[in-house]
């Protein structure tokens, strides 16, 4: 399996601003998933984008996938203080089952 590498490691913005997080990976994927983790809690699945999709939206979330560059981005629009959390990407290989996570992006949204 392969690990997604999130960038930046930390991001601090003001409420109402947009937040963009990036993910890079190394080999072919079936899909790529984004998760959020609030402090002291388990991970929560946000969105799954398949390898044949280029963009996907869910509420204030927008995910893009560029398989030629082996990268994905997560955009959170009109951020809120409640969006403060760590965000992880997980590339899933064609024959994959487990998820392998990087160290995530720690997003802080200041009120």
């Amino acid at each position, binding site marked *: 399996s392969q690990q997604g590498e999130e960038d930046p490691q930390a991001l601090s913005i003001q409420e109402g601003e947009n937040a963009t997080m990036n993910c890079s990976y190394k080999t072919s994927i079936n899909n790529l998933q984004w998760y959020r983790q609030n402090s002291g809690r388990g991970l929560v699945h946000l969105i799954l984008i398949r390898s044949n999709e280029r963009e996907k939206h869910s509420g204030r979330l927008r995910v893009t996938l560029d398989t030629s560059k082996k990268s994905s981005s997560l955009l959170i629009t009109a951020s809120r203080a409640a969006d403060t959390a760590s965000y992880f990407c997980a590339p899933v290989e064609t024959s994959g089952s487990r998820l392998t996570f*990087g160290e995530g992006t720690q997003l802080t949204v200041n009120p």
Partner: protein
Amino acid sequence: GAGVSQSPSNKVTEKGKDVELRCDPISGHTALYWYRQSLGQGLEFLIYFQGNSAPDKSGLPSDRFSAERTGGSVSTLTIQRTQQEDSAVYLCASSLVSGQPQHFGDGTRLSIL
């Protein structure tokens, strides 16, 4: 419906003792996963179950770690002769089938004194 449930939520034990961590997955989920997360780190994969069998146990760090799953449901992660480096949050997740979104419990915070 109920999510993934883990117990205990916190466990403090002395070095050298054995511990058992329990995971109740979402009903009907065939795939179950265990992960470990050390302070400020990402998640480290430990083991994956499909039904009651474990096709991928490559993440178990040593032979002190074992896990089983019975009835295609509850899973137990056992750590024998605990060491201080075993201190971490142990997270369990389940998914309907492998490769699909995983649903996580809130973890067991294990502290070895």
